[in-house]
C-alpha cells in the first residue's frame, strides 16, 4: 500500500538575488529589495515528501531517524546559517527559492534511505513557497 511521509526542517540562511546577466538597473528592477547589495535572510522551511510502500513490519514508509540523518547531512548542515550565494551550487545560479527547491530535490533524490522523493517544498516566508517535483 503506497503512502506518503512528510517531514519539515528549518534552516536559516541569507541570500541576495542578483545575476551578472543583467545590468545594475535591470537587477534592481527585477529583484527589488531582494537585490540589496549586502543580502538579507530567511527562516526557510524545507518540506520533504517521500512516497513508498508501508513496510508491514514497521508500519512506516521510511524511518524518520534515517530520513533525518540524510536531510540534515545533505541539506540542513550545508545551508543552515550560511550565505546561499557563496555555496558552489549557486555559483552560476541565482538563489531564488525556486532554485533552492530544485537544488534540494537534486541533493536528496538518490540519497533517501528508502522510497521515492515525491516532492520538495521550500517555504521562504509564511506567505510564499515553492515546490519541486521530478
Amino acid at each position: 500500500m503506497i503512502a506518503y511521509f512528510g517531514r519539515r526542517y528549518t534552516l536559516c540562511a541569507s541570500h541576495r538575488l542578483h545575476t551578472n546577466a543583467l545590468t545594475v538597473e535591470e537587477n534592481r528592477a527585477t529583484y527589488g529589495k531582494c537585490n540589496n547589495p549586502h543580502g538579507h535572510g530567511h527562516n526557510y522551511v524545507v518540506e520533504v515528501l517521500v512516497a513508498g510502500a508501508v513496510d508491514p513490519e514497521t508500519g512506516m514508509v521510511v524511518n524518520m531517524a534515517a530520513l533525518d540523518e540524510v536531510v540534515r547531512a545533505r541539506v540542513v548542515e550545508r545551508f543552515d546559517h550560511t550565505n546561499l550565494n557563496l555555496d558552489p551550487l549557486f555559483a552560476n545560479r541565482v538563489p531564488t527559492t525556486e532554485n533552492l527547491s530544485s537544488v534540494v530535490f537534486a541533493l536528496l533524490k538518490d540519497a533517501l534511505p528508502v522510497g521515492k522523493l515525491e516532492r520538495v517544498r521550500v517555504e521562504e516566508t509564511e506567505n510564499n513557497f515553492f515546490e519541486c517535483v521530478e
Partner: protein
Amino acid sequence: MIFLTRRATFSASHYYWNPAWSEEKNEQVFGRCANRNGHGHNYTLEVTVAGEPDSVTGFVVDLKWLKNVIEREVLAAWDHRHLNLEVPEFAAIIPTTENIAIDAWRRLEPSVIQAGGAQLSRVRVYETPEIFAEYRGEA
C-alpha cells in the same frame, strides 16, 4: 475539478511495538516511540475531497456534512483514546502516522461513496506540525 479540504484535530496516545521482534530491536528501530507506557500527540487530520461544484449550491460537498462524517467515523473512535489499546484496528497493526492516515481513509471512504458526487482524494495526518503522512487510496 475542485479539491475541498476540511481540517479536524484529535488527541490520542500510542506506542510503536512489533511483537514479533525482541525488545532490543523494537527500541533500536522505534527509539523513544517504543516506550510501552505510551505517549501522545495533538493530531491534525486533513480530509480532501474532489469533485465539481453543484450547479445549484456551488458546493463540492456541504462542509457541515463532511465535518459530521469526520466526527462520527474518526474522531468518535480516536479522540482522547489510546490507539493501541482502545481502537480495534490498531491491535494488530502499529499506529504509525502512515497507518493512521490509511485507516482514516478506510473509515471515511464508505460515507463519501454513499453520498455520491465527490470522491475522497487525500487524507493527511499531522502528528506534530513537522511530521505528517498522507494516503491517496493507492494500492
